[in-house]
């Protein structure tokens, strides 16, 4: 009998070791993150290919279930950094067709909790900022290939998602992403000679915070050339419109000569966004978060969660939190053409907006996780009562072992089973800067230095259109 109890102990420990030993998404991405930090996006893509269970960057997984859609986003980012916009665009487009997103407005708390703890078995659901950045980065891909029609398709896809999230009141959390996406959409329309479309997108970029004086001059000139009148109820935009009217009309040919022909738009992607790691959130802190998000938790669930916390049966909640551990700090990119340094006309602090975006949805997620935990803790308590009854009647070592198992069901196994979902788009840049310069048509060398590492591009500058350059290798 004693031997049987020992076996049960061993079984418990084995179960816990196995459950705790399962690597999370963030764990699996560590190698790719390190390769990218080392300036080796090709090696990072190879690491992703192993997870996608394919041999080459051109291969696609058979199905896009579980993590696969997200892994395609990661590989697309790495291929863009490695200078393969065609491969990157393909991965982004496929992921875009299949990617669901995290909709907090119409989702029940138990469904959210299931997403949170279902690990890689459930399809990944992207938060709002990731959906918008996907189309933004794909605009860059198409413009790098000089396929401005394709870039405008991405711009329109961006707009659909933007209106969806703005309707859902998520827009204010990501002004940088919205400004950048609208600005690049404006560039793609400008390159396709759709001046009114360009003015509409640029006006939105201005509205969401892109306020550089050089950009202001360009937008006023575009309003003068097109007669565009902002539809947005935004005082600063109306001010630009008044300025354009006072200055009088401008011929489109003059606008083109000044702002399009021989102009280069340089995009520099720098740093890496915070990723998620599983942490043990003290139960008291979790309750505080939940109390601010009571919409996602019934009164009964909240009361029971408090009781469980006070009883000391549970001390923490396994939850995914953002971390910058092991990531490089943001460098100050030094961009130049022919030795002349350029100043940015805009930037998006993606890392900050990832934090803000996660903070906005983590409260409801904690509330739903607590609800789930309470239901399971109550089930665990019932098991403990059964074990106590068995012990009273048998007084045996076996009953003690059952008691141990029941206790673990509450304090250990449940925690081990609750592996929080640490999935997120980890290879995104923490910051994207935009530079714009008019140059002599012909071949020029652009360089971007980030923390002492310099990347160079030899660029054929178009005489009668915009030229796009991207730097995202060195983070």
């Amino acid at each position: 009998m004693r031997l049987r109890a020992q076996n049960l102990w061993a079984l418990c420990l084995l179960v816990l070791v196995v459950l705790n030993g399962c690597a999370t998404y963030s764990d699996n991405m560590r190698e790719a993150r390190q390769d990218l930090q080392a300036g080796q996006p090709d090696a990072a893509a190879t690491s992703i290919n192993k997870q996608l269970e394919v041999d080459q960057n051109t291969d696609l997984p058979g199905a896009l279930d579980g993590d696969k859609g997200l892994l395609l986003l990661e590989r697309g980012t790495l291929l863009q950094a490695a200078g393969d916009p065609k491969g990157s665009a393909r991965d982004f487009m496929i992921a875009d067709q299949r990617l669901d997103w995290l909709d907090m407005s119409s989702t029940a708390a138990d469904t959210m909790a299931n997403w949170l703890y279902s690990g890689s078995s459930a399809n990944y659901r992207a938060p709002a900022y990731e959906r918008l950045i996907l189309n933004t980065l794909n605009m860059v891909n198409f413009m790098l290939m000089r396929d401005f029609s394709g870039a405008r398709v991405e711009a329109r896809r961006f707009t659909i998602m933007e209106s969806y999230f703005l309707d859902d009141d998520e827009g204010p959390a990501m002004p940088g992403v919205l400004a950048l996406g609208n600005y690049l959409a404006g560039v793609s329309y400008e390159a396709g000679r759709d001046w009114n479309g360009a003015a509409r997108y640029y006006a939105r970029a201005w509205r969401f915070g892109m306020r550089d004086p050089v950009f202001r001059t360009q937008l006023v000139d575009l309003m003068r050339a097109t007669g565009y009148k902002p539809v947005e109820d935004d005082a600063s935009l109306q001010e630009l419109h008044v300025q354009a009217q006072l200055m009088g009309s401008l011929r489109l040919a003059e606008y083109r000569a000044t702002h399009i022909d021989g102009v280069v738009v340089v995009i520099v992607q720098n740093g890496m966004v915070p990723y998620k790691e599983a942490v043990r959130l003290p139960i008291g802190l979790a309750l505080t978060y939940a109390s601010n998000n009571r919409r996602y938790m019934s009164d009964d669930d909240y009361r029971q969660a408090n009781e469980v916390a006070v009883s000391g049966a549970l001390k923490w909640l396994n939850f995914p939190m953002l971390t910058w551990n092991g990531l490089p700090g943001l460098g100050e990119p030094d961009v130049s053409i022919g030795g002349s340094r350029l100043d940015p006309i805009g930037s998006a602090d993606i890392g900050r907006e990832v934090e803000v975006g996660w903070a906005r949805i983590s409260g409801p997620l904690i509330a739903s996780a607590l609800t789930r935990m309470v239901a399971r803790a109550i089930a665990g308590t019932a098991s403990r009562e059964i074990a106590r009854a068995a012990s009273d009647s048998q007084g045996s070592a076996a009953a003690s072992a059952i008691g141990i198992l029941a206790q673990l069901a509450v304090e250990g196994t449940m925690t081990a089973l609750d592996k929080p979902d640490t999935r997120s788009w980890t290879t995104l840049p923490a910051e994207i800067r935009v530079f714009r310069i008019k140059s002599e048509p012909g071949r020029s060398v652009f360089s971007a230095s980030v923390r002492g590492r310099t990347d160079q591009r030899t660029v054929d500058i178009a005489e009668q259109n915009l030229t796009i350059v991207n730097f995202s290798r060195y983070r």
Partner: protein
Amino acid sequence: MKKWMFVAAALAVGCGEPQYVRDTEEPNLDEYTMSLRLDRKDLDRLYVENADKMFASNIVKQWERDAATGKAPVVAIFPMRNETSEHIDSQLDALLSKIETDLVNQSAADVVSHENQPDLIAEVKRQQSEAYDPSRLAEYGRQLGAQYFVTGKVYDSAERIDDERRVQYFMFMQVIEVATGAIKFQNEAALSKGLIK
């Protein structure tokens, strides 16, 4: 040993693994809706509706009368503009050849082969919006020696609610007189595709 191999092969076939097929093996292959993008069946539907109207239009009858007097007009085909939120440029390019074939076979016009004008077509695609500016049209017309352009655009109204999507496609087809920029024929056809749960 042979028996073991047979069982293994039978199991492999019976596992429900995806397999490649052609339309002769799976007659309904073209009937399935695989995505929200326009497929050949969609394009055929949109095109046929527009083309039927165009070939019955007054301008095509005018071309027949002109041809009868020995003055068959020269007609060029411009790329159709993709103003949708889906990547359907390659499908629209495929449609160009179809329009060209039908114009050659069903109208009295002399048709400029778009494959012989790759640089100009590429330029038109790059500067799509401006290409439809009347002054630009005259310039392109001179380069091609064309009196008329057949062209069009596809645009959409796309919506997403939760995980459901709907894309309503509209295809315009136009015949434009190069000298004046006047639209001599225009028709619109529509269809919708969706992802519903």
